[in-house]
């Protein structure tokens, strides 16, 4: 028993730092290592340069492996093939938001003072991250929609919505934490889809689309909040009226 147990423990210890992804933002601890190891990083970053020309394909991966000094067969170290390339795009673009945040908000500080305004600005910044691969993005969405890749795709979307709200300074700790992130996920995904067919200069139509959706989301949440408040008030007032009439509630 002892050797196999010791081996298991050793293996777990060795894997722990790389696989333990933190599910929250921390100011006090350094960020955990990324999901790609050095070899995957080398192949994927080289392959990513071929995406505008060859799309999110095995061909791009293979070209990337050769650029990085590997063999054609070495692409097998990337576990999910083309989907890993898509994931690389999603992860790098999400992680690129944080360093750009200061630059964005110092430039037009007057425009983005409230949390919703900053969410809009950051979401737009993330959409612009798709600029170079936009003409290939429909293929990527098709791959992401394959059943085996759906959970990972939704996970990345959730991480993005959370990252945007965190960077926008959202500090809500009530149920709106979920509705805000859920709402932004839906809006972001539909804007991304809209963008793949957008031919306007500088993707102006997409930005207008995004702003309309966020405004609708805002008014919807206002309406829901108002109705909830009214219902709560009416119910408690009704209880109080009944109590004043002597009903034992």
């Amino acid at each position, binding site marked *: 028993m002892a050797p196999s147990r010791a081996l298991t423990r050793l*293996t777990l210890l060795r894997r722990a730092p790389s696989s333990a992804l933190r599910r929250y933002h921390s100011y006090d601890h350094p960020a955990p290592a990324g999901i790609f190891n050095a070899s995957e990083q080398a192949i994927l970053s080289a392959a990513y340069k071929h995406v505008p020309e060859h799309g999110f394909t095995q061909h791009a991966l293979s070209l990337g492996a050769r650029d990085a000094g590997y063999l054609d067969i070495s692409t*097998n170290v990337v*576990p999910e093939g083309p989907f890993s390339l898509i994931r690389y795009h999603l992860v790098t673009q999400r992680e690129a938001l944080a360093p750009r945040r200061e630059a964005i908000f110092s430039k037009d500080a007057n425009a983005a003072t409230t949390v919703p305004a900053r969410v809009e600005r950051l979401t737009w910044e993330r959409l612009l991250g798709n600029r170079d691969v936009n003409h290939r993005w429909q293929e990527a969405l098709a791959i992401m929609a394959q059943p085996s890749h759906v959970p990972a795709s939704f996970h990345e979307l959730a991480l993005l919505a959370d990252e945007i709200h965190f960077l926008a300074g959202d500090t809500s700790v009530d149920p709106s934490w979920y509705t805000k992130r859920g709402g932004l996920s839906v809006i972001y995904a539909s804007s991304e889809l809209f963008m793949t067919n957008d031919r306007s200069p500088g993707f102006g139509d997409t930005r207008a689309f995004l702003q309309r959706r966020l405004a609708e989301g805002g008014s919807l949440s206002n309406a829901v909040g108002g109705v909830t408040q009214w219902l709560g008030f009416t119910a408690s007032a009704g209880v109080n009226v009944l109590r004043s009439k002597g009903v034992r509630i």
Partner: protein
Amino acid sequence: MAARPVLRAAVRTARNQPLASTYSSNSRCIATKPRNFCTSTQFLRPGTTSPGSNNGSPRTTHFGFQDGLSESEKTDRVAGVFHSVADSYDRMNDLMSFGWHRIWKDHFVSSLNPGYSSSIPPAPQRVLDVAGGTGDIAFRMLHQSHVVNANPNIHITISDINPSMLAVGKQRSLSLPAAQQATLSFLEADATQLPSTILPNSLDLYTVAFGIRNFANIPAALAEAYRVLKPGGVFACLEFSKVRNPVFDAIYKRWSFSAIPLIGQLVAGDRDSYQYLVESIERFPSQDEFRGLIEDAGFVVGGDGFEDLTNGIAAIHKGMKPLQ
């Protein structure tokens, strides 16, 4: 009141015969507890129970649930098993896995995608298929490379320690197209000590499907794989593994320990060889442990390092030899 002794007896019986899945892969606890499946305990060597306890004497390994065999003894016995199953090997695989092993093998080869090359003309590739006697994997790789990827510039060496299995593969290879036969060669070799005809840093791909659990010394075989692969070359292994779902595991264990030796007896007329097969599956390390062994040999693994097939009955492990 009268029912109580009966009840107690029933509880005692149930306690003494737990499900097969509760056994760990460890040999000693399996040897001491009663089991509800049969085993091939023809003889157990006394005194050599722990593999690490005997310093100085030859390294010991295990054969199914039997411990304390020397590595050469295991090699001989495995040779005996595969010598006796060689002719009925494919028919038995179909019966044991309901034909599903073909799907695993197809997936294994298409995910490896040998012969794929982004350069024009396609770059040549050299592949070694270890323990590939009957050619199941090698023929699929030939098809993937020649037909799917239009790259005839691939050379596949089928290596097996067992001449009987190689003979089956040679016979079957005669039905392949001539162009594919020309890129195929056969080699009788021990995977833990490859011959000098396979040069170091010479291979693009090293595959072993349903073979590595029979090796007398798995770390030595991995070290050999590392030695002969080019930097950037890939080690890929398809092997039975551990089912994580306990309910499915119980059903699977029941099937493998009860039905498979029986089918072996009825179809191939050889119960002991198939008893060994299921015991060796039970003894093989779990996905995480085997990934640890691959990493210890110096390979780099991506992501989880393995892919479960059919709930973990089998698993694909891949490792890449890093650039210097």
